[in-house]
């Protein structure tokens, strides 16, 4: 009985690992690492995480996981509630259209494929929030954030690969 319970708990945790890892990444991205970077440049790691897990483990990281990651980020920030959810849902839709081109591609090509998608969703969020405030938000800050996001992609992906290979059991 106890073993069954242990097994169920283990499986549930395994299935939740992509979501938990994404939460940790998002939380980490809001830590005050002042000694490394100015506060006003922020890497959008939620976008990296959603991109990775939707492409690699869509069985355990689905539409609702995307929603929860967005909500978690929205709560942490003072940006309009729902804007991060919108951004990540849009990424989910775009990946859905592009997934056939990404299947089985190398890390470098996936990185290259990530760049236009990340830019489009970050720009879309910028546009929606600009409409929300009825004023254009500073575009250079968005560009810096995009460049930083592109730069941290390998690191975030590397850790996500490690989580997937070492901590998760492939049921298939």
């Amino acid at each position: 009985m106890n073993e069954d319970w242990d097994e169920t708990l283990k499986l549930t945790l395994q299935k939740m690992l992509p979501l938990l890892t994404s939460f940790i990444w998002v939380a980490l991205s809001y830590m005050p690492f002042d000694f490394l970077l100015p506060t006003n440049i922020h890497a959008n790691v939620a976008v990296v995480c959603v991109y990775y897990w939707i492409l690699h483990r869509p069985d355990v990281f689905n539409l609702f996981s995307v929603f929860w990651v967005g909500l978690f980020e929205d709560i942490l920030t003072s940006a309009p509630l729902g804007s991060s959810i919108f951004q990540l849902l849009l990424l989910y839709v775009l990946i859905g259209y592009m997934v056939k081109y990404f299947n089985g591609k190398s890390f470098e090509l996936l990185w290259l494929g990530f760049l236009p998608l990340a830019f489009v969703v970050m720009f879309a969020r910028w546009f929606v929030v600009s409409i929300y405030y009825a004023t254009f938000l500073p575009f250079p800050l968005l560009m810096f954030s995009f460049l930083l996001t592109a730069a941290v992609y390998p690191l975030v992906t590397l850790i996500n690969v490690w989580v997937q290979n070492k901590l998760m059991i492939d049921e298939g």
Partner: protein
Amino acid sequence: MQLSHIRQLLKKFALVILFLIAFVMMLLNKTDTVLIDKTSSVATDIVSPVVDVLILPARLLANAYDYLKDLSLAHKQNQFLKAENRRLRLVSERARSLEIENRLLAKLLNYTRPDEENLVTARVVAEEGDAFSHSLIAYTGKNSTAQKGQIVLTDKGVVGRLDKVGQLYSKILMITDINSRIPVMIENTRVRGILAGDNELNPKLVFTPISADIKEGDRIVTSGVAGVFPAGLPIGVVSHVSKREIRVLPFADLNKVEYVKIVSFPLDEESNLSEAGVVEVRDE
């Protein structure tokens, strides 16, 4: 049978429903209802401990880096601090005599002094700043008498004001955030205005009289209008003056806020906030 049909329908339209939820959230946020405010405060209380735990190793790393950096500058800083200490001792003596003189004159004129403020120190747990918003999460809440609207300082100047106050954690809206509006004045000319953030690095000074002579280098302090904030708290200096806009460089290093002081000033409830213009831009 019907339940499975509903489930299938939900699955089919889940994406549309979630998009709609996101937009409804944004709309509700725009109206700034009490519901959103309270939900957000509770959510901050739930999420912030996660960040607070994760912060420990990062903080250690940052402290070690700072320690090593300080060590290399120790001798130079020591010389500078000794000289500054000598200068400040003279200033302190002068300030003490001026304070006594001020008290005597106030007594003579039967002047009623404004209420004294209390300071609460809080540790910063998380910070965010990008094109969308500029805010901090600090370990202070209703348990330590924090209230929405209270002004937040570092040792150098004003950082922002309390926006969402939970039981243990609070969100601080920085002066650079697009929703921030603080009544201020030029220290030497007493010209009043509003310091407005726009998510840029330096906030704007708006609603100043056209005839006002504002120059680069002028010091900006809180005006204390409507008694929401104490008057005279340092904010920054005018860094850019043009026909289109006036920008202010904050005294506080907004890139490096580790601890903050929250000024607990007697407030006359929320009404004062709107009176002073210390309302979020969406309310205007």
